[in-house]
C-alpha cells in the first residue's frame, strides 16, 4: 500500500493506492498546524511507503512515521498524476493556493519544461480567495458569480492588493459587481495563458489544482485558447487530488 500526500498552502490531499488501484482519497485544510493535519489524515493507515509532495513535503520527511518517506516536487507529482489519468496529455496547468505551474510533458510523464510564479501569489487561488471577499461571497461560489457578468472591465493589476484597489474604484464608478468579478478572473487567465506560452503549450491540456473547480476559469481558459473544452482542455473529476495521485503513482513505480 502506497500513500501519496500533497501538503499545499491551503489544503492537504491524500491518495492511497493498493496494487495500483486508488482505494482512498481524502483532504483536510492545511491550517496553521500542518504537522497535526498530516498526522490526522494519515492516522489508521500503515502504508509501505509514503511519498510527500507540495510545499510542506519536507515536514512529512521529518515526522518519524515508521515507514519509508520519499519526497518529490509538486512539478513532478502533477506531471505524473496527469500522465496516469490522461497519458495522451501534453501540457499540465496547476493553479493551487499560492502557486501556478505550467508544465510541458514528454512521453512517459516526464517533465519537458516548466514555469512557476515566483514569490508573489498573484494569479493563484489566493488571488481569487482574496478578491472574492470584496464581494462577500465564498470563494467556491466566486466562479459562478463571475459568469453572470457580460461586460468585464480590463483589470491591469496582477498584484492582489492593487487589484482590490482597482476593483473598489470600479465599484465606485458604478460598474456592476459581476462584471468586475469577471474582469478579475480574466486578469488571471491572461497571466496563465502567458505562462502556458512559455512552456510551448500543446493540446491536450489538463487543468488541475483547486482552482480548476472554478467554472469561470475553465470557461475563460477555453475561450482565450480558442479550443474545445473536454477535448483540448480536460479537467479531471477531482482536480485537487492530482498532486497526491502523482505522488502515490511515483511510490508505486519500480524502484
Amino acid at each position, binding site marked *: 500500500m502506497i500513500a501519496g500526500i500533497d501538503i499545499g498552502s491551503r489544503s492537504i490531499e491524500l491518495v492511497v493506492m493498493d496494487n495500483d488501484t486508488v482505494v482512498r482519497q481524502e483532504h483536510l485544510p492545511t491550517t496553521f498546524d500542518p504537522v497535526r493535519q498530516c498526522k490526522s489524515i494519515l492516522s489508521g493507515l500503515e502504508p509501505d511507503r509514503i511519498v510527500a509532495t507540495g510545499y510542506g513535503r519536507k515536514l512529512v520527511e521529518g515526522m518519524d512515521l515508521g515507514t519509508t518517506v520519499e519526497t518529490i516536487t509538486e512539478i513532478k507529482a502533477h506531471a505524473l498524476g496527469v500522465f496516469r489519468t490522461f497519458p495522451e496529455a501534453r501540457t499540465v496547468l496547476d493553479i493551487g493556493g499560492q*502557486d501556478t505551474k505550467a508544465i510541458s510533458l514528454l512521453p512517459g510523464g516526464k517533465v519537458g519544461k516548466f514555469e512557476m510564479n515566483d514569490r508573489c501569489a498573484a494569479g493563484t487561488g489566493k488571488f481569487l480567495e482574496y478578491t472574492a471577499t470584496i464581494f462577500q461571497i465564498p470563494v467556491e461560489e466566486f466562479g459562478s458569480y463571475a459568469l453572470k457578468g457580460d461586460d468585464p472591465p480590463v483589470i491591469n493589476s496582477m498584484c492582489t492588493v492593487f487589484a482590490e484597489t482597482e476593483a473598489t474604484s470600479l465599484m465606485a464608478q458604478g460598474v456592476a459587481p459581476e462584471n468586475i468579478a469577471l474582469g478579475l478572473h480574466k486578469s488571471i487567465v491572461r497571466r496563465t495563458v502567458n505562462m502556458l506560452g512559455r512552456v510551448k503549450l500543446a493540446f491536450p491540456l489538463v487543468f488541475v489544482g483547486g482552482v480548476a473547480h472554478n467554472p469561470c476559469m475553465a470557461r475563460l481558459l477555453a475561450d482565450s485558447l480558442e479550443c474545445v473544452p473536454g477535448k483540448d482542455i480536460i479537467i479531471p473529476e477531482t482536480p485537487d487530488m492530482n498532486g497526491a495521485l502523482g505522488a502515490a503513482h511515483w511510490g508505486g513505480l519500480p524502484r
Partner: protein
Amino acid sequence: MSESVYKEMWENLNLDIPAHDGLLEVLGKFYGDIYLSQQGRLKGAEYLDFVLSEVHGLRIKEIMDQKAQGKKVVGTFCVFVPEELTLAADAIQVGLCAGAEAGTEAAEALVPRNTCALIKSFVGFKLARICPFTESCDMIVGETTCDGKKKTYEAFGDLVNMHVMEVPQQKNATDRDMWKAEVLRYKDALEKLTGNTITTEKLRDAIRIVNEKRRALQRLNELRKATPAPISGRDALLINQISFYDDPVRFTRKINELCDELEARIAEKQGVAPEGTPRLMLSGCPMAVPNWKLPYIIESSGAVVVGEESCIGTRNSRDLVVDEGDSLESMLDAIADRYMKIDCACFTPNTEREDNVETMAKDLDVDGVIHYALMFCQPYAHEAFKIDKTLSEAGVPMLAIETDYSMEDVEQLKTRVEAFVEMIK
C-alpha cells in the same frame, strides 16, 4: 569570528562596532551552515576557511600595515577595472562588499527601491559603516556598466573619493579607442593618487602577477571538467570571490596547491558527489561574497555546480593580457584589448556571451544551466531569453531564476531547483 584584537583597528576605521559584530556573527553562522557542513572537503579549503574567518581581521590588518607604509587602496565593484594598472602603481586592489543585505533602508534613501540588491548592498555597507574594505579605500572605482550603477555612483561620490570609468556599450573601433582612453585616464588617476609612476617594468610585473592569478583560476576550471566533480560549486565560488580581495600572489600560490590536490583526487576518481550526480552550471549575474544562496540551494537539491559563467567566475578569468611585452604602450594596448573581450550584458549586441555559455556548457559536460539574474538587473534579465534560446537549440535544459539576497523566497526556489534536477536526471 569577532576578534577583539582587531577592535581598535575597526574603531580607527570608524566602523559601527556593534553592527559590525552582528554582521560577523551572522556571517560566521552562515559560513558554518553552508561551508563547514560539507563532507569530504579538500585540505586546501583550509586556506578558504582561514581567509574567510580573517576577512575583516588579518587581511584588513595587512592592508592597514601597508597603508602605514604609504600604499594606497583602490576599491572596485566590477571586472572592468584593470588590476594590472592598480598593482603597477603599487596600490592594493580589493573588491568591495556587495553580497548581503545591509543598511537597506538607508540605501533606499539614496537609490530607488527598484534597484538591484548588489547596488543597494554596497551603498548600505557604506552607510551602515560595517565594511572595513570600503572604509580603508583611498579611491573607489566605478564603471558605467548599467544605469543603476552609474546613477548610484553620483550619489556614492558624495561619500567616497570616486573615479568612474566609462565602459563602452558596443565593440566597434571607436568604442575600443574610447576604452583605451579610459584605461589611460585610470592610469593617470592612479599615478596622481599614489604619486608613483607606472613604468614599463612595473607594468610588466603586474601583468604577470594578474595573468598568473587568472591562470590558476583557469586551471581550477579545467579540473572541474572531471567526473565525479572533484570540488563543490560552493567552494569554487568562494575561491572566485576570494580572488577579489586576497593578496594576488598568495592567492595564486594557494589555489595552485589546491589544484595539485584536486589532480590527485581526480586521479583516484574521488569526488564531492557520486558519479551520476546531475552537473549544473550557473550563468548570469555575479555572486558577491557572501551571496551563496543559490549554489547552496542547488547543492542541497542533489546536484553539483561545476562552473560559474559570471563576473565572479569565468568572465573574470577567461582572458589573459596576451602581451607581456617590451614597451609601455604595447602593454597598455594589450590591457585595453583584454578588457574589451569581456562579454558583459552591458554590451549590445553581446553574442559572444551566447557562444561562450554554449561552449562552456559543452566543455563542462553539464546536464543543465541555471541562469541567475538579480531582480531589477535589466541587462542580464534580457539576456536570459537569449541564453535560453541558444541553450535550447544546443539541447541543454535551462532554468531561469530571478532573485535577490533576501531569504523569503528560499522555499519557492528550492521547489524550482529540485524540480529542475528531477527533470534532468
